[in-house]
């Protein structure tokens, strides 16, 4: 997990330096804030991964000599078939259209979106098709 952490930390450290140089040189607010945000975007996940990488056992994908048996068993849950992404996408599109054309599509959109969010939560709990 170390290399994964380093990728994000590189981003964080780079933008820490770049942001610092930019702020001291230009005193321009908008750019400095955006660079600060990017610094955090790198450092927060990066330090989380680094902290975990020191505590977790070596995973098979980090072991150059690993065999397939090392990774045998359940890989994860991959819901194979679900109507809810489509419904949520449709609902979001209707809500977006409501911002342009007026409130009549908002009702349809919100109904679809909320149904989808509820549906997806239930689907996750009972386990959908894999």
């Amino acid at each position, binding site marked *: 997990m170390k*290399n*994964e952490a380093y*990728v*994000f930390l*590189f*981003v964080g450290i*780079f*933008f820490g330096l*770049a942001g610092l*140089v*930019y702020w001291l*040189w*230009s005193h*321009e607010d*908008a*750019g400095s804030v*955006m660079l600060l945000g*990017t610094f955090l*975007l790198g450092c927060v996940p990066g330090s989380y991964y680094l902290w*975990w990488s020191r505590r*977790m056992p070596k995973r*098979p*994908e*980090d*072991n*150059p*000599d*690993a*065999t*397939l*048996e*090392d*990774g*045998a068993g*359940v*890989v*994860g849950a*991959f*819901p*194979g*078939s*679900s*109507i*809810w*992404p*489509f419904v*949520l*996408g*449709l609902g*979001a*599109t209707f809500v*977006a*259209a409501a*911002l*342009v*054309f007026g409130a009549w599509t908002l009702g349809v959109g919100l109904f679809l979106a909320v149904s989808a969010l509820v549906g997806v939560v239930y689907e*996750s709990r009972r*386990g959908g*098709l*894999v």
Partner: protein
Amino acid sequence: MTVLAERPVSFAEAPEPHHEHGPSGFLKWVTSTDHKVIGKNYTVTAVIFFLLAGAMAMLIRAQLANPDSTLLSQHTYNEMFTMHGSLMIYLFVGPVAFGGLANYIVPLQIGAPDMAFPRLNALSYWLYLGGGLLMMTGFLTTGSAADFGWVAYAPLSNSINTPGAGPDLWIVALILTGFSAIFTGVNLVSTIYYLRAPGMTMFRMPIFTWNMLVTGILILIAFPVFTSALVFLWCDRHLGAHIFEVQGGGVPVLWQDLFWFFGHPEVYILALPFFGIVTDVIAVFSRKPIFGYRGMVFATISIAALSTSVWAHHMFTTGVVLLPFFSLMSYLIAVPTGIKFFNWIGTMWRGSVKFDTPMLFCIGFLGTFLVGGVSGILLASPPIDFATHDTYFVVAHFHSVVMALVMGAFAGFFYWYPKMTGRMLREGLGKATFWLMFIGTNVTFDPQYLLGLKGMPRRIAEYAASDGYTTLNRISSVGAAIIFISVAIFVVNVVVSWWNPIPAGDNPWDAATLEWATTSPPPHHNFLKIPPIRSRRPVWDYNHPEDRILDHAHKPRLGELVAAGGGTAVLLDEIGFDGEDGAGSREPDR
């Protein structure tokens, strides 16, 4: 992150054979969360937007072929270049790369059964489709589609200067597609970090996968800024906010600042996937490993980091940005890009280069991107930018770069089409597509560099005969027609490959990376068996054991290979896969 404890559904407990009871037909397609189906959806949708945007480009070039042209009204012309740019950038190049090709190929390259969040992946596609359709709906409104350029500068984009539903549809469409991209970015990073097969360490991943990881991170950096800026714009237009308007205490140039903080990483989000494709393809068709792999990884991450620090080079002429900081950062991008170029050349060096269509497109990419890159260095100099900003010089620069990326996309299409469909595309038609596209690109855009130097501004609907722009414009328009023909030939190629298929087999290119270990197209959950992963080229190692490079410092002897194979005997002359019934399988059910 105690992974095992959190897995809620065990495959061993799942009902089987589950997909025989699943939906079929249209319902199966609409409910699919399979990354391969979603990848194909994205690719087909993106190519349709490409064809629509290409048609708009033909209209633009038809208008500009003559001075005092009245082919299109001013208003229609302004819509054309706005929607051409918007469709190409927001709805084609990005989505085909991170939604289409990456979705399909990344899980295969790392030995994963799917993306980390399949339903989120599907949602990304539906949001993209919905947003794209909403944007096109602008053409059906009274005031017609958005016409403020793909960059929508404030205050031009406010409700006084550009009223109407078309611009509003553009804004909300991009909010939807923005979220779509952000979700894909999350999926890419998570998948690459957590779903690699045993032995697939970070530094054994194909460069395409590395580039998609970095692209995913860039998406997370850039798109939220754009989405926020769009929300601000909508508030200015409809809620009486004055964020980008002077009256009310706003700052118009803030729009440019926010937009380009997104806009510059965005063009690298567009570019990095195709850099990755070109890297993998050149190695295969040179029959050598990638030269300077670690340098490539370092260069990709450096390009991404630098690209987020250069945004105000699009604002040199505003007079309010720190010129030396942004020009230095922009120049510095040439260094990692140069590393990549030399590594691509190093991969071919003393290799055995075969000019199949994917490789031809890679070489076209190299030649064209070089021109675009050098012109980019020129533009990175503020004094030169003062003279050329918002002229056809810039148009030529970014089209050189973008057409190079399109050639990279075609390299990817030709390379992976057999894997995705089980059929080969026709080589003769492919070569014709390449040559016409390469020649067409140069005939269209090289004259535009000269037009910019002559002083022709961009986004003008017409020019006078006495301006002296006519000849160069006419040559450019001929070039556009050549590109049109090359794309038409490609479409014919695809159609022919369906009506009269040539079966592809698992590995028609004798390629090296993991996606070529499985069938064409891959089965449900991708792999029935996986070769041992001991280097960056697991399939090559299996097919060419005498030419493998084991990157692990400890080079195992035969006896250790046998032991590492566990219950499955690994013989020198027949290094076999683990069987699907064994404990070594990653997919217990079928």
